[in-house]
């Protein structure tokens, strides 16, 4: 049962839940939800639509107070998950004694590129809610279906674990580095046949957009997707001009399923939640990476004191 004796309910509790059978998943998740509802807590569940159906069935009419969201939609780009939790927390911080969530961003079948961003997302959660109201977030991991390395990585990103009904602290928990929160594993370089343009005093953003539009059009993107891709590459290039030392390289390329855009500059992104906090309607800046995350399927941010590379992906 998910009723540990030593739960610190005054803070953010980020806990990985390792399960091997569907019945175990449904049992533990519904107990967790019911306990929350009984205690007057606000509860939100972000998992696949198939799992939402199973949980609703088991809750048997007692799921009215639960907010459900389809993780396969919200979490397609994992950078959009923290904003969804932030929205939930902000909405209930005053009217609920505490908050509870179930979030399953990682499932068998996620691509390696998606998985990398999901793992960064899990790590950043530890920073995103550390100073917020009491919030217990349970992250189910299908230990039978996922590779062992994925489970080992989960233990590095969750301070708390529960498996077989037993709660414990993760011995391998590795908190994100606040000085270089986007260091990550370096991206492999763009392929040799990528098309490149350098932004400096002789190339304007309008040039970058025309260059990007031409490649996106050749890749066969629909006109809406092409426009979104151009918007995203433009935002990264504009960030480089303003914050990245005034010069940058832009690389564009495709494979059979995806168009890629990558912008590299000499800047360093130190805000761990860059692009993951909804911009205030009154602020003048701070919208570039937010827009990029909203329009792209996947955004890889890799940033160290020596420079930043941001790679965008969009399905063709």
């Amino acid at each position, binding site marked *: 049962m998910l009723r540990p004796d030593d739960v610190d309910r005054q803070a953010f509790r980020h806990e990985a839940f390792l399960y091997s059978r569907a019945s175990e998943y449904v049992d533990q998740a519904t107990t967790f939800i019911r306990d929350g509802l009984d205690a007057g807590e606000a509860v939100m569940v972000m998992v696949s639509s198939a799992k939402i159906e199973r949980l609703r069935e088991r809750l048997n009419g007692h799921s009215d107070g639960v907010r459900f969201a389809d993780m396969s939609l919200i979490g397609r780009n994992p950078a959009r998950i923290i904003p969804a939790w932030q929205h939930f927390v902000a909405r209930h911080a005053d009217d609920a004694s505490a908050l509870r969530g179930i979030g399953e961003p990682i499932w068998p079948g996620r691509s390696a590129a998606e998985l990398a961003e999901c793992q960064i997302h899990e790590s950043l959660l530890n920073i995103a809610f550390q100073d917020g109201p009491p919030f217990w977030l349970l992250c189910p991991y299908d230990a039978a279906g996922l590779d062992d390395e994925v489970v080992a990585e989960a233990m590095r990103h969750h301070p708390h674990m529960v498996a077989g009904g037993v709660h414990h602290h993760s011995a391998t928990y590795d908190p994100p580095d606040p000085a270089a929160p986007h260091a990550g594993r370096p991206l492999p370089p763009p392929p040799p046949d990528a098309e490149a343009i350098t932004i400096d005093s002789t*190339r*304007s953003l*309008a*040039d970058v957009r025309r260059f990007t539009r*031409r490649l996106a059009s050749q890749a066969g993107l629909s006109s809406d997707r092409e*426009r979104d891709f151009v918007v995203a590459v433009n935002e990264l290039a*504009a960030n480089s001009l*303003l914050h990245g030392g005034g010069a940058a390289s832009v690389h564009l390329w495709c494979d059979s399923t995806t168009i890629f855009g990558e912008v590299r500059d000499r800047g360093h992104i130190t805000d761990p939640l860059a692009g993951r906090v909804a911009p205030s*309607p009154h602020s003048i800046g701070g*919208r570039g990476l937010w827009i990029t995350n909203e329009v792209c399927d996947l955004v890889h941010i890799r940033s160290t004191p020596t420079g930043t590379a941001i790679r965008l992906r969009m399905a063709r």
Partner: protein
Amino acid sequence: MTAASEPDPLGLDVPAPGVVVRPRRVDGEFAELEMRGELDASTVSSARSQLAAGIKPGVREVVIDVADLEFCDARGVGLFVELQERCAAGPGSLHLRAPSRALQRLLAIVDLGYLVGENGSK
């Protein structure tokens, strides 16, 4: 820049259009302007000074026709927020008229759809 006789290898030798703001009608506290071209991080300061020249002190209600604004990025949105905040302090309002679908989508993403809404103010 690439020499005029030699075509740019990237096919980008057509000059960038920039951004142009023109006043259309000023009537006491009301000003209508049009903005055309491409509003981005490189052109936003030009747009800001053109707007300042077109919106005289005492104007409270500002309408900008953006039908021919072909592109707008996050910094362009930031300029509209700047102007909206100034108008609201008046108190007054800013309304963007005839936005393209692309601009409507962009403003929806950053939760500023009200700038192009029916009333033009929140």
